[in-house]
């Protein structure tokens, strides 16, 4: 077990080297540069040269990369060219928002996706099954930004039930010791803040969770259909176990394994979807941070941000792999 974890962690090194090379050269292949983004039409050759010199962009690209790697080795991700703050400082401020949003979206997908898939399987080829298929297809094929705009238009602009931007109403003041606003609201003991933060999460979580929901529903359906014809399920039924107990203890539990793999893969999807969702909802997380950075050709932030995201995706998948052991003792024993 330990060896497995260590091996997977060591695998991080080539992945991160690969990602850092890709991102480093890709950002520099974008037209323009930080100087042009900062100066607009005032980007005289002298001013551009001065700024490029300041950021070392006038050196050969391999020298720049070497410097960057050397800097990374000391866990220094550099400073944002826009705010002049350290990339790590900005990441710490932004990351909790994305985690909160991804958790809310992931849980939304699970809570609605698993029952939807389960019901579809139980009513195989029935109207409920067909309805769930249509819903899933719509969920998968609707672009996030479009769904987000529609949700906002209906629930925020027209009905006025939910807010359309941000993480918390500007008129609510609670301290943010953790930057996880749900947690901050609880720590501050403010029910108003807690409700407000929850409301701000609803629409972005639905927009972001729609695709994972659809995928989870389809996988659950297929998996449940597989499992419910197994011998042990028939045995359980035959021995007179209550149908509900059969469903939960035998069918769903065994159908869970492929679902958990999918959930792990969804984390990458949630993080990439966060780029669009956060921008549309002005949600100050990693996604909107990266979009702003790309617009401003803010090289250190783009590089650092993408590296952080890569690390997270690798870690979450590791955790998912480890969780197989919990769900399926056979895998645990095999190792």
């Amino acid at each position, binding site marked *: 077990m330990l060896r497995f974890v260590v091996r997977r962690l060591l695998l991080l090194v080539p992945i991160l080297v690969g990602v850092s090379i890709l991102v480093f050269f890709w950002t520099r292949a974008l*037209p*323009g540069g930080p*100087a*042009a983004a900062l*100066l607009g*039409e*005032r*980007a*005289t*050759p*002298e*001013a551009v040269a*001065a*700024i490029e*010199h*300041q*950021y*070392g962009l006038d050196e050969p690209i391999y020298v720049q990369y070497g*410097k960057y790697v050397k800097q990374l080795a000391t866990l*220094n991700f*550099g400073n944002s*060219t826009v*705010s*002049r*703050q*350290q990339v790590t400082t900005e990441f710490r*401020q*932004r990351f909790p*928002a994305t985690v909160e949003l991804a958790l*809310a979206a992931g*849980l939304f997908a699970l*809570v609605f996706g698993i029952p939807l898939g389960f019901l579809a399987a139980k009513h195989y080829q029935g109207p409920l099954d067909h309805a769930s298929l249509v819903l899933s297809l719509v969920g998968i094929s609707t672009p996030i930004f479009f769904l987000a*705009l529609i949700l906002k238009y209906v629930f*925020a602009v027209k009905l006025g039930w939910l*807010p*359309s*931007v*941000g*993480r918390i*109403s*500007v*008129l609510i003041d609670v301290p943010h010791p953790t930057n996880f606003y749900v947690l901050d609201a609880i720590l501050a003991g403010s029910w*108003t803040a*807690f*409700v*407000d933060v*929850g*409301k701000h*999460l*609803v629409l972005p979580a639905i927009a972001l969770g729609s695709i994972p929901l659809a995928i989870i529903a389809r996988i659950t359906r297929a998996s449940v259909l597989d499992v419910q014809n197994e011998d042990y399920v028939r045995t359980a039924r035959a021995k007179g176990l209550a149908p509900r107990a059969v469903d939960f*203890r035998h069918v769903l539990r065994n159908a869970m394994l492929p679902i958990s793999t999918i959930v792990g893969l969804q984390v990458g999807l949630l993080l990439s979807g966060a780029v669009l969702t956060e*921008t549309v909802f*002005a949600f*100050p997380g990693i996604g*909107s*941070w990266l*979009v*702003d950075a790309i*617009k401003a050709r803010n090289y250190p932030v783009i590089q650092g941000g993408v590296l952080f995201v890569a690390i997270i995706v690798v870690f979450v998948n590791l955790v998912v792999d480890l969780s197989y052991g919990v*769900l399926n003792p056979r895998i645990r024993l095999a190792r």
Partner: protein
Amino acid sequence: MRGKLLRFALPLVALLALIAAGCGGGDNESVGGTAGSETSEGGGGGTLVFAGAADPVALDGALVSDGESLRVIDQIFETLVDLKPGTTDVVPGLAESWDTSADGKTWTFHLRQGVKFQDGTDFNADAVCFNFDRWYNFSGSFQNPSASYYWQVVFGGFKTYNPDSGAPKDSLYQSCDAPDPTTAVITLTKPSASFLAGLVLSPFSIASPTALQKYKADDGAVDADGVFHPTGTFATEHPTGTGPFMFKSWTRGDKLELVRNPNYWGATSDNPSEYNGKGATLDSLIFRPISDNAARLQALQTGEIDGYDLVEPQDVPTIQQNSDLQILDRPAFNVAYVGFNISIPPLDNPKVRQAIAYGLDRQGVVDSFYAGRGEVAKEFMPPSLFGYADDVPTYDYDPDKAKQLLQEAGLTLPVKIDFWYPTDVSRPYMPDPKRNFEAFAASLNKSGFKVVPHSAPWTPDYLGKSDQGQLQVYLLGWTGDFGDPDNFVGTFFRSPQLQWGTTKNNQMDGVQKLLEQARTETDEAKRTELYQEANRQIMTILPGVPYAHSKPALAFKANVTGYVPSPTTSESFATVSVG
């Protein structure tokens, strides 16, 4: 086994709780409501929430040049001289009046008395000189144009010259003296009249010397890349000026809150006719960053914000149709132009340049590509600026006249011209360069020309090529920094430039002399006349053809009053109220 199931079920329960919490409680909570009057405390002025496109970079005017920072700095700080709201006319600010020496080099500012900084310290001549000396003594990466851009525009260089910084060598600034607490004397190295208009810029805000030192505005570390990384908290937590609003808090990505300055000098002034008359009406002013255009509009529709800047032209009709909302026009302060290099034949011939001017369907371009936010430019500066002349030669689209002029010039039709446009760029004055170019090329081809299209990425290629004078005919433009004609026609034509071919061609020499004379003339009326004459000559000689000014739009809720859009975007929220 049951325990494990439970472990899995727990997060689900948590989410359900969250959703329940999110959906419930709707009765007693108004969704993101910011209706000012309901939330007011104290002075009864309420709260206004305004959305910008991004967070400010920092709240130290001397070190920023981005609009989002300057917008906030404008509320906390004040400058020696100010602009009459909605115009580019210079009026008293922290200085009640000023005199100029006969040689135009010594400027004596008579300061307002009884003004205090927000930290309770006195505003006086020493504080003024402290600030000017701070800026002049900037060294290292503070000399980089990304930090001290506006100092370099108005004053040029610094005390110590660093060739790597990109800053000019010579400085307009010489010294600042404080003979008594209410008199600040600024001495320049050469005469300048545009200097006064430059001083209205927020980067020349007077900050509390005590706060600058206490919160270490100039402290920081230079990292391995040579990038300066500030460690002080002046610009992020303790910006301290004399303005109508004071800093309260800032959570990046979320909100920046200012509150009314109860000790604002304007609020206690016993002379109501003075500029600005009173302090802020609002109790609280909140800025929040919303980068997505559609999100800003929707937030205004839901009432989560009370106003926003940078309204997309296509959203203007939607807002105008909504009786709860209003659109405010900001006067145009930019110009898009078709530039010529007048040293490349046949453009050295004035008749050919006139032919191009007649061959450009400027009205068509402005009507088609500016979404109703543009107007055809007649001069190289916006009409709101003094020195704009009403009687310059005009060139309405006339293909026949263009052909006739080309024949008079002795050329065989069609005349080949190399016409350049930039890619990968959209500027306020030129939202879609390619389509502008295509329309112009079509109208020129009907007017006896054969347009050879060329394009290059905006930077570094396009700007580099135009700066080096490699482009014969090209699209370009400019957004003004401050309300002085020298910032428009002076920037373009006061000195010979490769871009216009004026280094090799002497047709613009007369204009250069006029503009130099106008720059140093301290008599306002005479300056105006000089610039008007320069504009008439420019539009006769035609080193290029200005074609569009665009008017940015702001959107507010209908109950917001007192916001006066300024051509230079330096708008005060002190006069704003929510009703």
